[in-house]
């Protein structure tokens, strides 16, 4: 494995960091975490619940927005601005380019989540004054959120490799919403018959399963999580990302860059 991919990843990360929009979004998310403190104070006895719920939801939603916002332009912007030509005329393989871009974006989001998590824990400390053992579950919730980000990044990149930024954003966001109801979708599919059943089941299984990765409510109520679930979710996220990136590579390898 050549280091080219890592160079591309680092450059993608650098691009994201120098993009001012990123900072605005992070600032907004941190603001929301702070606001959670105030909301918690109005609803007595559930300050912790509100801070964890609101804080984690903010991390999740803003992360998704950032992932989509940056992700959709990853390939299409390079093609439009023709910066891609001087890169691909070098001994870079097209698949290295795709994977490198993905790693850069994922890296950006992980670093981003780290900072936002500090905000959440800070707000939490403020309302409960000291941490307790079940608060470690928040780390699991954050880990799952990062897994969600990996999936969304790969999807944004997939759409970017063949579609315009606007359409990519629409597709990626739609899949996020649908994926949040993936459990219900599989349930619906089980109730249909015949040809519809095949189509619905296929769709239900291909949609990213965000419902299993969303444990914010459970963690807010300090419910324990099975370690088997953590393992399965990790594997699922990795394989799903691999699936989407493979598709992106196959598409991009064939694309004529006009």
């Amino acid at each position, binding site marked *: 494995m050549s280091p080219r991919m890592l160079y591309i990843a680092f450059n993608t990360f650098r691009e994201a960091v120098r993009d001012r929009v990123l900072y605005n979004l992070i600032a907004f998310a941190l603001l929301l975490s702070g606001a959670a403190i105030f909301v918690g104070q109005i609803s007595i006895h559930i300050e912790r619940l509100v801070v964890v719920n609101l804080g984690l939801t903010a991390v999740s939603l803003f992360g998704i927005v950032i992932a989509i916002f940056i992700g959709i332009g990853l390939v299409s912007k390079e093609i439009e601005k*023709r910066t891609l030509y001087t890169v*691909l005329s070098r001994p870079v393989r097209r698949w290295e380019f795709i994977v490198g871009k993905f790693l850069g974006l994922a890296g950006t989001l992980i670093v981003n989540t780290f900072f936002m998590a500090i905000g959440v824990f800070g707000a939490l400390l403020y309302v409960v004054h000291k941490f307790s053992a079940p608060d470690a579950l928040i780390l699991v919730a954050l880990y799952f959120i990062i897994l969600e980000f990996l999936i969304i990044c790969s999807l944004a990149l997939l759409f970017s490799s063949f579609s315009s930024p606007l359409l990519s954003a629409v597709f990626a966001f739609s899949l996020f919403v649908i994926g949040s109801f993936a459990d219900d979708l599989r349930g619906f599919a089980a109730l249909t018959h015949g040809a519809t059943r095949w189509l619905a089941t296929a769709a239900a299984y291909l949609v990213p399963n965000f419902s299993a990765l969303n444990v914010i409510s459970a963690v807010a109520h300090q419910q324990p999580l099975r370690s088997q679930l953590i393992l399965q979710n990790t594997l699922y996220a990795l394989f799903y990302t691999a699936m989407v990136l493979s598709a992106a590579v196959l598409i991009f390898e064939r694309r*004529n860059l006009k």
Partner: protein
Amino acid sequence: MSAIEILGLEKTYMVGFWRKRPKSALRPLHLTIEEGEIFGFLGPNGAGKTTTLKMLMGLVFPTAGTARILGREWTDPEVKAQIGFLPEQPYFYDYLTAHELLDYYGQISGVPGKDRKRRVEEMLQRVGLTEVKGMQLRKFSKGMLQRVGIAQAILHNPKLVFFDEPMSGLDPLGRREVRDLIEQLKQEGRTVFFSTHILSDAEALCDRVAIIHKGELRGVGAVADLTSTVQGKVEVIWQGRQIPASMKVLGAECHVTGDTVRAILPENQQDTAIDALRRERIRLIAITPLRTSLEAYFVEKLQHSQTTVGKRS
């Protein structure tokens, strides 16, 4: 070993929304470029020059045909380490500085660490951008971007360099600089393949040219050969404003400009003209054999295709 062998590269696009019709961007092209030469790829806009270049770079996939670059298949990734590319009206990551950009390109071209540092400094110096190396590219002027473009194209010491319209949008000073640079590249033993629609540049720089129009190759050859064909004429320049009567008899075209007269007449009348001037005691300034300019050759080739097209339809 030839630098580039284009063996029948062809590109047809399917255009249209519902019923796709084929549109030919490039008819099967056969062309060979030798090592160490400056080769000009000429043609009007939309002729297929950029399409050809993109196919050689692997950015666009040909409908048919292959090519060999420096003895290898053009799809071989190792080939890319030996070639440099400057696209038309280039645009680079504007959030990077010139230094960072060149370093990045060096990284992905596989130039090892220490070497890279040195090379980047060298390149910046060579294209005259050392002072602005810490400035973000979004602040660069067109000319500066072009210079960065050339720097990135030769950073990794490639044997073969491709330029797509390298002079476009440059002022006369910029164009002169680019021309000098291309000459230098040749001196260094590199092969330069560049496309342009500005014929005077090609005439000045190129060893050989190819002319392409509407996707078809119209002519290939050394500039000297192409322009020395036909109609040997001479240009005679003498001092004064007087035009001897005998000149007119010879059928010379005369232009009076300031204190000199410029006349064009057939080559075989050369001696007669000189005698006429001597008789009249007119001071001869210069006699120059006139070559068909590349422009004339070019226009002729294009017109020829127009008429052929006309005949077909």
